[in-house]
């Protein structure tokens, strides 16, 4: 039976069902409902986790690294400034190959300070080596959260996996969600295993050594390879991209997250317009994107983030991916800091009538 749950609640339920060993976490809007609901379920005995209420997000990720590499399944959650504050250690988590799962409620970065959705926080760490999966709605948030440990802990992967949902739009929006039975979730995630546990005193290991130019490059490269492995698994599981009405389409909207839902309603009414929704932003599924857009003439990339002094990030990657393909490609930025994107805006974008910065008041100086 479906239950009415917000994306945040759905993920918290997934966490309780996974029942991780350790959850180090720090509150921040719009992630907070996740940890609050999880804490409540925990207080009711529904999870047996060591919750570590750390004093900052930098420490949340640091504790998560320690715990994951000590041999404990570890989940955390954050948003925006939290992700920015822990950025340094997010890179290190990936490099130390700590298979942490992190629920992210995407939110605009300061400044100015704002609590609503955009994807600038995820973009900030796009080179960090962590896997980032973007979901469209609460159900997908739940499903992906249950899936995440299996990907993170896969012996060829062993990387942090971020399950990214749009702040408020998904985290705080109640929708029907079908939960799996607890046993099924335990079965899916199975036991936690890593190659070297710090607590294995019979085989003492040194984690996090110092690397000079003679070895840094090679050690770093292992992450590139792990990402490739993750991409293969995601491809096999059909979790890289969603192709919506792309068969025979001349125009494709490329986007991530909850906006895809709104866009689907729009393209259902149009001929020859489809949607390519990027589910796996990292690893970036270049090959599949190229395939999916092979016969498309017009590619419209919707970025919910910006890069002052350059082009928007998703657009830039799409252009690089499609380089030499002959398709026309357009960039639109939208929804920064929670600015709404309505179906009419999407219609205008498709029609070519929209400004580059959709919904911005005042003419953009840069075209």
């Amino acid at each position: 039976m479906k239950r009415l749950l917000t994306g945040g609640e759905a993920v918290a339920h997934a966490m309780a069902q996974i029942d991780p060993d350790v959850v180090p976490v720090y509150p921040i809007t719009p992630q907070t409902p996740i940890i609050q609901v999880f804490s409540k379920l925990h207080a009711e005995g529904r999870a047996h986790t060591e919750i570590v209420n750390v004093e900052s997000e930098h420490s949340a990720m640091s504790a998560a690294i320690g715990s994951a590499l000590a041999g404990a399944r570890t989940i955390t959650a954050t948003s925006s400034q939290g992700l920015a504050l822990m950025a340094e250690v997010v890179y290190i988590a990936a490099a130390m190959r700590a298979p942490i799962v992190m629920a992210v409620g995407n939110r605009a970065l300061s400044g100015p300070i704002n609590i609503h959705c955009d994807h600038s926080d995820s973009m900030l760490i796009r080179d960090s080596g962590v896997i980032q999966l973007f979901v469209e709605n609460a159900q997908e948030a739940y499903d992906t959260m249950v899936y995440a440990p299996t990907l993170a802990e896969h012996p060829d992967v062993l990387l942090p996996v971020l399950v990214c949902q749009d702040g408020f739009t998904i985290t705080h929006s109640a929708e029907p969600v079908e939960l799996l039975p607890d046993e099924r979730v335990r079965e899916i995630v199975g036991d936690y295993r890593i190659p070297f546990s710090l607590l294995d005193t019979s085989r003492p290991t040194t984690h996090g050594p110092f690397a000079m130019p003679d070895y840094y490059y090679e050690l770093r490269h292992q992450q590139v390879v792990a990402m490739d492995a993750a991409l293969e698994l995601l491809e096999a599981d059909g979790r890289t991209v969603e192709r919506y009405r792309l068969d025979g389409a001349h125009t494709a909207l490329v986007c991530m997250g909850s906006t895809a839902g709104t866009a689907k309603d729009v393209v259902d009414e149009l001929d020859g317009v489809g949607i390519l929704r990027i589910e796996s932003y990292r690893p970036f599924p270049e090959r599949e994107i190229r395939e999916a857009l092979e016969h498309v003439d017009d590619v419209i990339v919707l970025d919910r983030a910006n890069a002052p002094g350059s082009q928007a990030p998703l657009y830039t990657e799409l252009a690089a991916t499609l380089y030499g393909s002959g398709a026309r490609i357009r960039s639109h930025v939208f929804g920064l800091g929670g600015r709404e994107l309505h179906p009419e805006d999407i219609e205008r974008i498709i029609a070519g009538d929209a400004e580059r910065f959709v919904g911005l008041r005042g003419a953009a100086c840069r075209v």
Partner: protein
Amino acid sequence: MPELKAWHELPIAGVVERDEALRPRTGAYRTGVKPEVELAKCVDCLLCWLYCPDSAIVLEGTSFRGFDLDVCKGCEICSEVCPTGAIAMVAE
């Protein structure tokens, strides 16, 4: 110097297993002098063992046996702290 390895030959994340680790020979840090013991004077107080920053004092059980000059850096601390003057620094 050992051959440098390729990325796929390295342990994941550069985790170093104790039993497979290389141990640099830091004896090369010495700058002209090395410790020498007059065993007769030694009372096995173990202070040199305690204070040697480089774990270069070799014991047998709890008795002093000598120096591991492969790693001793020649800091002279052992010779300073030895209560019986059993250790002297001598030119290499």
